[in-house]
């Protein structure tokens, strides 16, 4: 979080992209500290890639300004922006070997040949590909190509590193490994980076701060902790992490009701219909629910039980709502099955309350739980 205190290195002021009548990115303002890794997170079509392309100069901004280290670069063509870009499909030059790919940016900067060679060697060492300098891109695996793409973007020592869904073409194991590698290198070099992804776990894992976007609008900007624990709205709560979503009501007297159960919650305090969101793993199954302030408890009926090894997920009908409860499994645990009555308990601060969204704004998620 130290990066937050750093002076802004990249600033977006009212950045806007319109395609005809469509506002792909709407008045986006954002300030990224030196050495900070910021994530642009959102579903496809939210404008995150468009934002990245505008920062990189690959697409002109309709309106607004892009400032790098105090200098307005909005009108500069990409080749004069000094930004390293890692593309989703890697975009390695197929007719050049690995060393030539890395050397290309240095040649453009008129770096003398011997220094060029040294820097290419250093960059290859950084991504542990020294032995592959003479290979053509098509002779490399996906993970290796990804590392070459990263090294190529970094060898020019750009002022900003832009990563456009760099991990989406890798399989799951490699993705985790590469994301940590990207984070390590980014921190080691202290480079300011913008990371576009639709994968919330990826963003939570490596970003200093995350900008959650939807339909061209910045919904929330915050640290992974803030985004997850204190989502600004129903959309952010639903998009980041798994969450139960139930229709509730807050009376004029301030009482929060889910069906006929009275709850304590956090967030929206206005009277009227509300949406109550609770993360499945924050709900406990217990015979002796903690009493008093700060805790909610209710009794429900198990409707379904799914065992997935490390996790047990249990669906509980609670009045009109259906809540998914996730528990870590352990040996000897006694678990309730379908038809059993169970007592649930969860903390008031885990009970997120939002004004009920007008119909049609959010499509109803299946089974009351947003996909992970």
């Amino acid at each position, binding site marked *: 979080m130290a990066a937050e205190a750093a002076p802004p290195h990249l600033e977006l002021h009212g950045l806007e992209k319109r395609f005809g009548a469509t506002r792909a990115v709407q008045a986006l303002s954002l300030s990224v500290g030196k050495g900070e890794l910021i994530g642009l997170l959102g579903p496809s079509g939210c404008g995150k890639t468009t934002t990245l392309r505008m920062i990189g100069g690959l697409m002109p901004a309709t309106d607004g300004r892009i400032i790098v280290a105090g200098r307005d670069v909005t009108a500069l063509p990409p080749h004069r922006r000094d930004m390293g870009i890692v593309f989703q499909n890697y*975009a390695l030059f*197929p007719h050049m070997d690995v060393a030539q790919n890395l050397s290309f940016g240095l040649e453009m900067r008129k770096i003398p040949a011997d220094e060029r060679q040294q820097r290419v060697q250093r960059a290859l060492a950084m991504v542990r590909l020294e032995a592959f300098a003479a290979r053509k891109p098509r002779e490399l695996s996906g993970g290796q190509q990804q590392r070459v793409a990263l090294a*190529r973007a970094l060898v020019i020592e750009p002022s900003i590193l832009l990563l456009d869904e760099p991990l989406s073409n890798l399989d799951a194991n490699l993705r985790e490994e590469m994301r940590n590698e990207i984070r390590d290198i980014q921190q080691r070099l202290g480079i300011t980076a913008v990371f576009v992804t639709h994968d919330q776990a990826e963003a939570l894992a490596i970003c200093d701060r995350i900008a959650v976007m939807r339909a061209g609008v910045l919904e929330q900007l915050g640290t992974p902790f803030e985004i997850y624990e204190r989502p600004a709205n129903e959309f952010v709560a639903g998009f980041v992490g798994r969450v139960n979503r139930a229709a509730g009501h807050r009376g004029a007297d301030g009482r929060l009701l889910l069906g006929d159960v009275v709850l304590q919650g956090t967030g929206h305090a206005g009277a009227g219909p509300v949406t109550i969101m609770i993360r499945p793993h924050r709900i406990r199954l217990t015979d002796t629910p903690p009493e008093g302030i700060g805790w909610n408890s209710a009794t429900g009926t198990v409707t379904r039980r799914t065992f997935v090894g490390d996790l047990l997920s249990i669906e509980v009908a609670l009045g009109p709502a259906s809540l998914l409860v996730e528990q870590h499994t352990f040996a000897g645990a006694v678990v309730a099955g379908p038809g059993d009555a169970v007592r649930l308990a969860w903390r008031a601060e885990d009970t997120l309350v939002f004004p009920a969204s007008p119909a049609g704004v959010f499509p109803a998620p299946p089974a009351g739980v947003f996909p992970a």
Partner: protein
Amino acid sequence: MGRFGLLPLLVLPAVAVNLLTFLWPMLNLAGLSFREGMPGGGIGTDFTMATWRDLLADEFYLEILLRSVGVSLTITGFALLAGYPLAFFVHRSDARWRNLLVVACISPLLISAVVRTYGWLVILGDRGFAPSLLRGIGIDPPRLVFNMTGVIIGLVEILMPYMILSLLAGFGKLNQTLEEAAASLGAPPLTVFWRIVLPLTLPGILLGCLLTFVLTISSFITPKLLGGGRVLLLATEIYDNAIVTLNWPLAAALSLIALGVFGAAMVVYGRIARAAERAIA
């Protein structure tokens, strides 16, 4: 049949057709060039080297050969220069429009080359559209037909569809993110073209050039009409000898020389294409 089973049988019809309609006539042609030509199209029965001896001794034919190769290379070059930007534009356009544009590019092929040649005669002729236009903007028009200029203009336009099709076929390796990557690494647009776009489109360029060159050197109607009989090329000479003066042995010998030029072009193409393949693949 080995591990392919009966599969090789599938090529038999094509082999048979080629033997019958290509190789057999070619051999006949070769034989014909060693016979004596009689006035009025008659052909002697005795073996003679006379045709080949005269042909190889006469500088006129060497001149024709060199001119044909030179003109064909020039036309190929112009077709490439005119076709490349067009093919690039078509390749880059929206998928919705691309097919339509491709059809537009090759639609001239729907009209016979003869008709298009007469069209050019009308456009380029002394009272035609092109000279009037030039006069209109204050330029004294040079002669545009019945000379080399007319032949080059006509053939470039007539053969451009083949060039464009070949280029488009070779543009498959091109991907706009590669250009974006190069630009992000600091390459200005012209450098992006030289270092990324051109190398990746080289296979298409080579194929288009081979095709255009071979088609140019074998075309005779357009050079004959637009050249007004003043542009003497290998193909027009073959035509004249076979159809006008009826010196069939000479026409046969010249045809074999043309075949040799095609062979040489194939060899050169193969060499360059292989070298390019090694360099860029």
